Each structure stands twice: as C-alpha cells, then as structure tokens.
C-alpha cells in the first residue's frame, strides 16, 4: 500500500516536474519567471529618435515581467557617442546597455570595451526559448552582431537607405507625356538607372514653382558620406578592398562622385546645408521629387498632420549602375565589459529584440529587425515603406567596421564637400582621400 502510494506521489512529482520544464520551454527564460534580477536598475543610453521613444513606451511591460528597472538616457547622435566613449574609456561603469551604430563594433571589440554575449545566450537560465536567431534579418545580424566569429550584440533600429519619390508626380500622365516628348523615352516608376534618375530630376526641377528634382544631404556631416556611399556601391566602387587596402580613388568612385556633383543643379538652393532632417522637411513641404534617404523618417513624411505629401509618396530601390546598393545603417545593442549587471542587461536586450516586441514596435511605425515582424499583416498595412525597407535590407551594403573608420569617414565628408563646392575636382579629392586613408591605416 505504502509503496504504491509513494509511487503515485513520485509519478505526480515527475509529472509536475516535466510539466514545469515544458512550461518553461514554452514561455519565458527561468530568470524572468523567478524574477532573479528583481530590484536591479539598468542604465540604457540611446539616440533621441522615434524607435527609442517607442522602446521607452513599452518598457513598463519589461519592468513588470522581470522586476528590472530600466533608466533610459536619450541624446542627439554626437552626444550619445561622446558619453558612451567617455564611459567606456574611463571605466566609470555608468551604462549597462548601449545602443550604438554598428560601425563601432570593430572599434569597441578590439579595444575590449564590450563583451561577447554568447555565454548569456547559451545560459539556459537566461536564454529565451523563442529567440530563433534565423529570424533576424541576415544582413543586419552579420553587420551588427558578429565580429571575428563572436557575437557581441543584437541589432537594433534597422536603418537603411532607399529611393524616396513623389509617386503622384511621377505617375501623372501629362507629366509622362511631356517627358517623353522632351527626352524621347518613358521613364520607369521609380527610375531604375542613374541616367533616368538625372533626366527625371532635370525634368521636374522648376525653381519658379519651388519644386526641385532631387534633395541631397550635402552639408559636411555624416549624412553626406552616408548618401554618397549609395552611389559609390551602385557604381561598383568600395572604400576598402577585400585584402584591407583602401581603394577610394578607383575609377568607379570618381565616376560616382562626378555624377553626384552633377545632381547639385537639380537640388534646392539650401541643399549644401541639408542633413537627413532637412531632406525630410523638404519632402514634407512638397519641395522635392526624389532623394536617396533613410527609412526611419519615412513615417513622418507619410503622416498627414506633419506632411503635405502624405499618401503621395513612393519608395523603391536605389537606381543601379553595376550592382544594387542600399546603405545599411543599423544600430546595435551592446553590453559594456564593465557593466555592473550584464545578465540583466542581456535579458533586456533579448526582450527588446524578441519577436513579440519587434512586432509591437513595428506597429508603431518603427523599423524592426526580424523577418517575422515584416510578415505581420498589420505591420504591412501600417506603412507604405515596409516592402522597400525589407527589399533594401536584403541588399545591405555596409561601411567598414574598423577602428579607424571614424576618422576616415570625417575626412570623406570633407572631400565630398570640397568636390560639391567646386573647389577641387572629384578626381583630386579622391586622390587626396586615398593618401589620407593610406596614412591612417599605416599602409
């Protein structure tokens, strides 16, 4: 009798145990269920952009499920990098989670500022059973997470560049007829090669109506190098070749820069003071027809309360010369090596990039990093630019992630700005840039 009873009890326990395990596999990492890290406060630093605001909006959910409190510090781009860098270099240990552009990955990893996250990913206590790495968009994962075969972080905002155009103007039949009469052919909507792009830009440049063919983010600023690199890749160029030597003055790049400078005639007068922000404003005011622009402000240009062209916009791939191009600009969530609470920080990052939260963020109009978010019907309906975003993400050209890049890109901006100002020819500035790159890289 007694043994039978104990057997039943034992079976009961085993069943409970199995069910318990099963339950854990189904839902959340044990650390969340047990609230292991309850009472911890994480400090998270990120750029002041809509995606960060959206994360902050959903933070109470994380705080409720984990018991971990997250304090978010938001600053404009330059200040994020200054504060992050100071914290990492001085070892003040203020921040537990960083949101940083992916090109700093190599620099941070080589300097030993950040730590690989694999050991947390493999910890059954922390790992989210539903994580599914293959669901992260492949290009993003490669650029934002992996450095020398180690995983250092998870991708955040999937910023990427593509072609913005005024669909209503380009599709207008009268305009198309007039264009055919003038140029002898019909353009595709949107233009697929650079010859068409320039003709369309010229055709729609009507200063008397305050309408311009293109907007260039041509201020001496990060926006300038970001934009031009699309042309560079499309024309078949690169910054650094496969063996690590700079090739910035290649014939392809010279041609791409010549072409870029030639577009200046069709841009609004203020274009040399534009960054990505002013390009968006110019669209919102209905002043420009086309631009190669980032995806994250697209939500603002499609918002009728902020924009005169909401519903009239189209989004497509960057025109192609030799190869498709799309400048990838995502950010990455990192955990500093000296973080006081790396496990809790990992739980936070895992939560932000989880399928569930990414879909929620996408429904807010943000740019998610998972295939599954783009497949969500509600997300697809939410914004006209998601198909173009996903298509561009599949291409994803990315800038070098070497430690020297911050200096290199700053010099690139100077060179491009000089060419745009007409002080020097594209050939001259790129030759100068090549010399600078050789010097910076110590070749």
């Amino acid at each position, binding site marked *: 009798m007694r043994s039978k009873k104990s057997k039943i009890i034992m079976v009961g326990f085993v069943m409970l145990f199995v069910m318990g395990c099963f339950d854990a596999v189904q839902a959340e990492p044990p650390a969340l269920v047990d609230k292991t890290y309850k009472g911890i406060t994480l400090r998270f630093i990120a750029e002041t952009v809509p995606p960060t605001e959206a994360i902050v909006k959903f933070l109470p959910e994380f705080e409720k499920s984990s018991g971990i409190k997250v304090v978010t510090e938001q600053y404009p781009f330059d200040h994020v990098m*200054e504060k992050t*860098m100071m914290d*990492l*270099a001085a070892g003040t240990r203020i921040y537990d989670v960083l949101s940083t552009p992916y090109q700093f990955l190599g*620099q941070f990893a*080589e*300097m030993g500022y950040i730590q690989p996250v694999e050991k947390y990913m493999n910890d059954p206590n922390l790992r989210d059973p539903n994580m599914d790495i293959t669901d992260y968009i492949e290009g993003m994962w490669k650029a934002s997470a992996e450095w020398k075969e180690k995983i250092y972080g998870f991708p955040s905002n999937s910023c990427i560049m593509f072609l913005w155009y005024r669909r209503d103007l380009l599709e207008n039949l009268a305009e198309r007829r007039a264009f055919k009469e003038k140029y002898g052919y019909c353009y595709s909507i949107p233009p697929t090669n650079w010859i068409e792009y320039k003709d369309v830009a010229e055709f729609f440049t009507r200063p008397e109506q*305050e309408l311009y063919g293109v907007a260039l983010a041509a*201020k*001496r*600023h990060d926006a300038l190098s970001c934009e031009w690199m699309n042309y560079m890749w499309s024309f078949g160029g690169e910054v650094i070749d496969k063996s690590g030597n700079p090739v910035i003055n290649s014939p392809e790049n010279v041609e791409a820069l010549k072409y870029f400078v030639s577009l200046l005639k069709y841009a*609004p*007068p*203020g*274009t*040399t*003071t534009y960054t990505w922000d002013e390009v968006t404003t*110019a669209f919102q*005011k209905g*002043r420009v027809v086309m631009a190669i622009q980032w995806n994250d402000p697209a939500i603002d240009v499609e918002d009728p309360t902020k924009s005169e062209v909401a519903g009239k916009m189209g989004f497509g791939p960057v025109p192609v010369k030799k190869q498709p191009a799309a400048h990838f600009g995502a950010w990455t969530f990192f955990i500093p090596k000296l973080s006081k609470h790396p496990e809790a920080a990992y739980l936070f990052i895992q939560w932000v990039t989880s399928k569930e939260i990414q879909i929620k963020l996408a429904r807010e109009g943000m740019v998610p990093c998972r295939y599954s978010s783009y497949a969500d019907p509600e997300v697809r309906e939410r914004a006209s630019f998601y198909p173009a975003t996903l298509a561009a993400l599949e291409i994803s050209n990315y800038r070098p992630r070497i*430690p*020297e890049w*911050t*200096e290199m890109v*700053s010099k690139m901006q*100077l060179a491009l*700005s*000089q060419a*745009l*100002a007409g*002080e020097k020819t594209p050939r001259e500035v790129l030759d100068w840039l090549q010399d600078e790159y050789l010097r910076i890289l110590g070749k």
Partner: protein
Amino acid sequence: MVFFHLPTMITLVIIAMVPFLFALNLSFRAYSLAIPGYKGQFIGLDNFRKLLNEDLLFWKSIFITIRFVVVVVVIEFILGLGIAMLLNQNIWGRRFFTSIIIIPMMIAPVVVGLIWRFLLSAEFGIISYVIKKLGMHLERGLLGSVHTALPTVMFIDVWQWTSFMTLILLAGLRALPREPVEAAQIDGANGIQIFRYITIPLVKPLIFVAVLLRSIDSFKLFDTIFILTGGGPSFATELGSIYAYRVNFIYWNMGYGSALVLILFLIVLVCTEFFFFFTQREAPQK
C-alpha cells in the same frame, strides 16, 4: 600672508595647473580611445612633428582662425568705439539704448547659432527671402556657399560681440577727466584733434583690454560655428577650435589632439605677450 593666499592657490592648481600638465603629458604620448595600440606609450615630439610638418588641414584651420580674429576684432573695435562715443553724448534715451545694445551679448551662443541658422535657411529663412526679393541671386544660400559662409559667421560674431567692446570703451570714456578736454578746447583744438590727441591716449589702456579679451574670445570661438556650419561647407569655416574638437572627440585621437590644443594655446600666449609688450612700451610716453 602666504596663509591667506593658500585657498586661491590650491584652487588654481586644481582647475588650471593639473589639467594643463595632464594635457602636456598626453601630448607626448600616442593615446587614442578608438584605435587599438595607441595605449599611451611615450613617443617624444612625434605628435608635434606630425602637426607642424604634415598636417595641412591644421595649418589651413589656423589661417582661417587668424583671418577670422583679425577681421572680427577690427570691425568690432571700430563699431564699438563709434557706438561708445555716441552713447557718451548726453543724448535722449541713452540708458535705454545702452541696455538694448547689450542684448545680443546676453543670449547663449548656442541659441544665437540656432536663431541665425533659421534666419539664414536658404528655403525658409526670412533673410534669404529678403535677399531674393531684392533681386540678388544666391545659388546656395549664405551659409551653404564656400564664398559667403565665413563672412556670414564673421557678421554674426560682430552682431553678437560689438556691444562687449562698446561696454568696456563706454566705461573708459565716462571715467575720463573733463579737464584735459576743456584745456584743449581753450587752446583752440578742434574735435578731431581732441579725439586723436586727448581721448584716444587716455582710453588706450582700456582699448588694449577690450581688444585683447575679444581676440582671445574669438580665437577660441566654437559653439556658434558648430551649430551654424559645423566647419563646412568644405573647409570654409573650420576654425582651430572646430578642428581640435574633431581630432579629440570624433577621431578620439587624444594624444595628437592635446598637442594640437597646446599649439593653439601657445599662439594665444604669444599674441598676449606681444600685446603686453606693446602696452608697456607705449606707457612711458604719456
């Protein structure tokens, strides 16, 4: 006595000497927050050698800075002196105008930058609009063209800081004794002669102070230009201070950056010494 000076000396050592020596030490080292291998090893004068021999951009930025300082200080001095002379007359509403005139000086430089950026915006700015209505054609806007960007930031600096000159010179003019002027009048001197031989020599010490302070201030101008142009377009408005910022906080090359800042400091020091020499040589003539 030494005991009473102690707090001041300690404060000075902490806020001035320690950072200075730290920067000096750093300038002899290869130290970067971004590049692995630049771990602070001693490299002697290598940073200085590179700066002075190889860094063409550095020299370019120094020349732009000198141009900026000379133009801005000369214009501010002439305008400031003129306005101070005007306000020194017993005209109606003198106090009111004095208050009005110092308003630009009281606005934070970053705000000045933001206000002017909006005013000068090529598409939406009121100034660009007026220029267009006047029939002048500006292809790229005042801040967007390499030819007009530097004069424009100079103008903004003059707009903001002329009143500083005015204030100092006005204080000097108001403190002048009446007697020499009256004596000269009795001797039959005309207005220009009184100005040239009585007023100017008497306010000279204050002129030196005002010019010196403005020169140092405009030499290290950063915030307004950073907001307005960020050093662009091309290299047109890249003052030494902007270039120093770029090297230190964008390239994160802090050893090299410290050397750069020290050279800027040396230039200011030499200029100041030159000024002092100048005043001291003039003094006995009075």
